[in-house]
């Protein structure tokens, strides 16, 4: 009786443990198909090899930009949810690019910065990510991970910035100097011992670098930007304006040439002409820039 009871206890215990293991295994197997994958994009971004334009540029990173992420829900059990956070990498990358491209960069995150540095600032740039798409081999059966982004840049005069009653920053769209889109594409092939997350991160870094290359080579080609640069050059030439003529003739020449626009000028002009005016919805997004929504340290 005692032996039977002991055997029964052992059997019950083993079956219970076995059952628990099987349950965990089943959950793990089921979970594998629908586990979410998360990527916080990070990379080492190089400083651009440029002669900085003699311009003091204000930069506002709206919160939607500085904390940008995209989420793609799995469409089947074989797929995974994807959450890709690009915000930190965006701010890091564009900070490096702007710092290499312009002589002085001022991060504007509140009205105090506008008041204290406004006289020095030649213009304020406000980047936004209008669209982002990605593909992975599971989606396309092609052994390539791809990321495509479309940015919308707005350039405004510092005088167009206003403080709302709640303290948030906003700007008058009629005082906008220029708006233009920048597209960027990054791809990376599949590689042995490379996870999906690593490949998506690499594709995002390639896309960011491409965005920077596109920005640098088409910046001066935008008519609004060209007019703005000409105006700064003329002010500096006449000794009027926020900045002394540190660049002299060379600085003026650089700006007149639209900076180092070597490739893609025509394509950029065509793209600008096509998408030069943003939709009312986009303007509405761009007009109000809450101080709480902006990010980046003031420099």
């Amino acid at each position, binding site marked *: 009786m005692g032996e039977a009871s002991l055997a029964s206890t052992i059997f019950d215990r083993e079956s219970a443990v076995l059952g628990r293991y099987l349950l965990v295994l089943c959950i793990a197997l089921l979970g594998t198909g629908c586990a979410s994958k998360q990527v916080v994009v990070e990379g080492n971004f*190089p*400083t*651009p*090899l*440029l*002669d900085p334009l003699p311009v003091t540029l204000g930069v506002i990173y709206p919160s939607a930009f500085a904390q940008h992420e995209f989420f793609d829900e799995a469409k089947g059990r074989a797929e995974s949810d994807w959450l890709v956070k690009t915000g930190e990498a965006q701010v890091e990358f564009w900070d490096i690019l702007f710092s290499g491209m312009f002589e002085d960069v001022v991060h504007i995150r509140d009205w105090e910065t506008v008041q204290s540095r406004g006289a020095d600032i030649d213009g304020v740039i406000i980047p936004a990510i209008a669209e982002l798409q990605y593909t992975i081999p599971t989606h396309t059966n*092609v052994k*390539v991970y791809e990321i495509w982004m479309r940015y919308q840049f707005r350039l405004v005069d510092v005088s167009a910035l206003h403080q709302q009653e709640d303290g948030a920053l906003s700007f008058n769209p009629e005082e906008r100097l220029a708006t233009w889109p920048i597209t960027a594409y990054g*791809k*990376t*092939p599949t590689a042995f011992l490379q996870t999906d997350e690593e490949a998506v991160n690499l594709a995002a870094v390639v896309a960011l*670098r*491409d965005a*920077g*290359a*596109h920005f*640098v*080579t088409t910046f001066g080609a935008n008519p609004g930007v060209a007019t703005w640069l000409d105006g700064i050059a003329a002010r500096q030439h006449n000794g009027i304006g926020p900045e002394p003529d540190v660049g002299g003739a060379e600085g003026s020449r650089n700006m007149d040439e639209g900076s*180092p626009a*070597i*490739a*893609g000028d025509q394509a950029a002009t065509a793209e600008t002409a096509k998408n030069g005016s943003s939709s009312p919805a986009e303007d509405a997004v761009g007009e109000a820039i809450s101080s709480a929504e902006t990010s980046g340290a003031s420099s």
Partner: protein
Amino acid sequence: MSTGIIWHNIKQWVGPGLCALLLGGCVNATVNEMTYNEPVAGIGESSVVILGRRHAPDYDTEFDFIQCIGDHIHSGDPSIDVIGEIAFINEFYPWFEPRTAPMQPETIDRLLQLPPVAERFAAMQLEYMIWIDGNTVDTESAGSMSCGIGPGVAGCFGFGTWGTESEYEATIWDFTDKVEVGRVSAVTSGQNYMPAVIVPIPIIAPVQGTACDSLGDQLLEYLSAHH
């Protein structure tokens, strides 16, 4: 199952496996070369950079292949200074990205109009810029393999085979004269085998490695005074 049938089954799979062992690893390589103005005395203190083309929508020239060619040239003649590709691209960002990289040697002059770019090139004493375009792909596959797992035993049984093809072209630019001075191409192909009798044994044809050696040898012959 009788011993005869088992032996017959083993022979059926071991036979092709042994053949694969004998035949595996064979790679066909075709190399074409057309070069001008060879530096008879070598390139001296100057340096060379080898870059991959990555502007095509459907493929990228592999970074490790570029590294392989650079290593091959440097190990063949240690006096040749080969600049690392990633370091070069980062130092000249954004001028050698897929979107902005010069496609013709004449366009280098436009790059050199930028003072910081010109200064950095001068500091590097760059003599030759070599562009590699191409990639390695797996082609048709055949065969089947089954794997099983049981209490205390696991194994695979079967035979698989697939092809691999590499096609690369190196274009040599003389950086001083801003002209193209040669093209070298290598097309290699091979068949890979994977026999499995309990344990799968991959017999991989070194297709990309052969392409690297072939291109590397030709480039070394062009650049080095000792080859």
